[in-house]
């Protein structure tokens, strides 16, 4: 039986900068994960549905626009509504430390802010993926 970790990398909301998301996607690929990259300007509905169709183990989202308090929790709820209870959902981007406790309370497993190494993200996924 083969287990291969599948990760959806998505950019919710309207900011148009995906360099960071691409760097993370590449690092996850090199760590042996299958990365489904969906690109810019995704709605929470699109992310949740893509996660269902791809049966991913992890959703990794990046936001630089400041819309994270609204968009991250929405994705968490939509994913649960679809019956996927075992998905590890993580976020990253320009996110003030003061926002992080609320995001974690809303169901995000971890939030990665600027300066995080890609290997820290890889290690976190390996340690926490179900």
């Amino acid at each position, binding site marked *: 039986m083969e287990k291969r970790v599948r990760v959806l990398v998505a950019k919710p909301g309207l900011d148009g900068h995906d360099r960071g998301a691409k760097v993370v996607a590449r690092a996850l690929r090199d*760590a042996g994960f*299958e*990365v489904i*990259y969906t690109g810019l300007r995704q709605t929470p509905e699109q992310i949740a549905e893509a996660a269902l169709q*791809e049966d991913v183990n992890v959703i990794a989202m990046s936001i630089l626009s400041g819309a994270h308090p609204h968009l991250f929790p929405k994705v968490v709820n939509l994913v649960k509504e679809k019956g996927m209870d075992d998905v590890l959902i993580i976020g990253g981007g320009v996110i003030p430390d003061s926002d992080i406790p609320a995001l974690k309370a809303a169901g995000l497993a971890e939030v990665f802010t600027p300066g995080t190494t890609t290997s820290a993200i890889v290690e976190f996924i390996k340690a926490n993926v179900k």
Partner: protein
Amino acid sequence: MDIAKEVLNGSRLALSRAITAVENEHDDAVDIMKKLYPHTGRAFVLGITGPPGAGKSTLTDKLAKEFRNRGKTVGIVAVDPTSPFSGGAILGDRIRMNELTLDEGVFIRSMGTRGSLGGLSRKTAEAVKIMDAFGKDVIFIETVGVGQSEVDIVSAADTTLVVLVPGLGDDIQAIKAGILEIGDVFAINKADREGADKLNIELNMMLDLDGNMNKQWRPPIKQTIAHQNEGVIELLETLEEHYEQLKSTGQLTTRRTERTKNELLNILKNEIGNYVLGKITESGQFDKLVKDVEGRMDDPYSVVNNIIKDMLK
């Protein structure tokens, strides 16, 4: 949950989980396929292949939308390469298909090749069957960007569309063997670029040399500009025409019989291989045989003959 039953009841989550079970060879995979198999064989399976960057994903997106306009439900299996070094992959075909994500009549699944070299993933055929049993009318298989010889798509699809773009080579490319031989329909995408007419002429010459005059179907060549949705309707109608032609001439049955035969042989080879390997490794015999062959005390042909004589009496 009984995944197979849920798939047949129309659960998208079950459909997704079933593909994972098969792709990762979970214990219940064979059982799921057994239950779904009687419900397969109804969908029109359309293969889309061509070099990287030719526009396969964009064309798939547009064709899928047009099938949806015509009331058909659509499944898409999109294959991208797995890294031979890390085993990881970037599966990026969905980027071109984002508008389809929220259409409930469409289901898209990305797959990594995971070591398979023919342009498909190891379990593409099974993913197609699961979508077929789910009730999808049309199922696209989008291959990895291919070079010249990744032609597994032929045995997996009913109709194969080869997507080409101008400017990739001179006319000697057109007479080589490989992917140019497998097209039932050709699309010259990005047809607004220089060289589209020349490519058209070269493909036509190639098809003339094939002795297509006497064949029932001469692969048509259509020009498209996928991102502007140009030529898509005409292309779709040509693809349907080919499928109708396959049905009316009995070729569809021939192709599918061939597919069933290969499928059966593959499963048989696999199972026998696993069975035999299990027996000889269990008894510790295998390592000794390898040593014998390596030391030239025996040859691999006699070794295999003896194993088979022993085991399959």
